């Protein structure tokens, strides 16, 4: 681990992190407002049969309860995009981008091992993902407090929500960084990481919208992070184990492959 490289990576991300973090807080604040404003209307609409109940849910979330709305807010494409900027974009380009630009060899000409480089980048990226996640969830809790709805949440479970959510997004981050240390150009690394994210997302959404395909959700990492369930007191420790395992496997791959790779002169 290189504290200098960690610090520099954080410095390079700070403006983007500030903007996305503020957007995350804003999005989080809006979710309880939406719930407060529309949950009764949505429930009436669903009960009337005019609109299929499945289409009023999204992934594992819904607007019928505040915990469900929080899940919906974290599985919404906007939240995915905010977290994906770092978990996919920044991680997939972290090494492959430097490699393609030719700056990786300038950096590796310093007394820093590839393992140390990898660990420093990984920690910096995980911190950025955690900050965005905290911003979104913090916004949601803050919004619930402003709306006077905190009694609908089991706030004692908040650390577990953060831990489970962090495990989920750490899995995408470590996958992105593993792709990044594998390729010489950022394009394939971004493509592969994005495909991994989209496939997981697709399996979760498909299963939630089409009951015959509900089994596909089990194969999605998103299905193993249900903040609404946790905040309702329904804790599933296996979910945490699954996302942590999914996060650790790419790390093992990267620390085996990256130091052994040949880094030929950039084209």
């Amino acid at each position, binding site marked *: 681990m290189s504290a*200098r490289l960690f610090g520099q990576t954080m410095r390079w991300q700070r403006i983007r992190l500030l903007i996305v973090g503020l957007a995350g807080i804003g999005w989080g604040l809006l979710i309880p407002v939406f719930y407060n404003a529309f949950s009764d209307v949505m429930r009436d609409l669903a009960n009337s049969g005019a609109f299929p109940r499945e289409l009023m849910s999204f992934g594992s979330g819904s607007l019928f309860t505040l915990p469900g709305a929080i899940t919906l807010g974290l599985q919404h494409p906007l939240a995915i995009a905010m977290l994906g900027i770092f978990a996919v974009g920044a991680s997939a380009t972290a090494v492959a981008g430097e490699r393609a*630009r*030719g700056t990786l*060899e*300038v950096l590796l000409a310093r007394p820093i091992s590839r393992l140390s480089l990898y660990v420093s980048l990984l920690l910096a990226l995980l911190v950025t993902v955690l900050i965005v996640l905290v911003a979104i969830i913090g916004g949601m809790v803050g919004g619930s407090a402003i709306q006077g709805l905190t009694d609908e949440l089991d706030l004692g479970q908040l650390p577990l929500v953060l831990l489970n959510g962090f495990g989920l997004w750490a899995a995408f981050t470590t996958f992105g960084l593993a792709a990044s240390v594998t390729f010489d150009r950022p394009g394939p690394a971004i493509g592969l990481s994005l495909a991994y994210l989209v496939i997981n997302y697709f399996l979760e959404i498909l299963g939630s919208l089409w009951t015959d395909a509900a089994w596909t959700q089990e194969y999605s990492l998103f299905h193993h992070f249900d903040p609404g369930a946790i905040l309702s007191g329904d804790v599933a420790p296996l979910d945490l184990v699954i996302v942590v395992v999914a996060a650790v496997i790419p790390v093992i791959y990267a620390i085996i492959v990256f130091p052994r790779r*040949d*880094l030929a002169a950039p084209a």
Partner: protein
Amino acid sequence: MEGTSSTAAITVRGLTKHYGSVEALTDLSLEVRQGEIYGFLGPNGAGKSTTIRTLLGFLHATRGEASVLGMDVASESVEIRRLTGYLPGGIALYDSLTGEQVLDYLVDMQGREPYRRKELCDRLELPASVLARKVRDYSRGMRQKIGVVQALQHDPELAILDEPTEGLDPLMQQAFYGILDDLRREGRTVFFSSHVLSEVERLCDRVAIIRAGHLMAIHEVDELLARRRRRVTLRWRGAAPDATSLPGLEDVQVDGNRIIGTLSGEVAGFVRAIASPNLEDLTIEPASLEEAFLEYYAAEETVA
């Protein structure tokens, strides 16, 4: 292959690097002594950068071994890079940073003080106003100058420079040569690759010639220059003498009272042999290292 010396800065033995079926480097052996400037000469694609990247741990050798400053390149690469300054060929820098920020960042990562930065910036004409500009606004030559400074600013024991004068204008090339001369005087070792023969001739103590991944020869530069052929033009008063009587002269052409030929070997003996009151003019043009190099390759081609 050379014998190993306890004062070797770089030792390479049987280094081979294959990319799949492509042989980038085959059985390369050489030794760079401490305190010398060693040129690594060859055309593009010869294997110069592959060798350098293997020495720095970017590439893993298929076979063979190498050590830098007494440390194994495979297992002690981090420590090697602590004591080394490296200028990659066609250096890329962080475009969003200023020149000064790049130098600060890289010396910070090096973990040493930028002892030589001010002197290097002065000599390479990089004033504070230029260093304050973003790298993206730099010309190729300015980037190369920053590359030279980042490689040498921490006063490394060994400088490994890949095509260091690429992009530098002639004035800056001279300034760079002066910097290397000073490093030599201070006992620093410099290993640099080039395909510019004149700078190898100007700077190096020894030169290794590499082609298609094979080491062709290692020479003292002085020896290589002494062995090279020279173009000789003799003008006589009256008729030229029998050209076969001129020792060491080859490829002879007689044009009236002029004899033109090429001379290999010692000059003094030739001058003594031709001394005559009838000799009106004598021109001996020193062949450049480039010619010696081309001759060398031509001879190898013929053998092959």
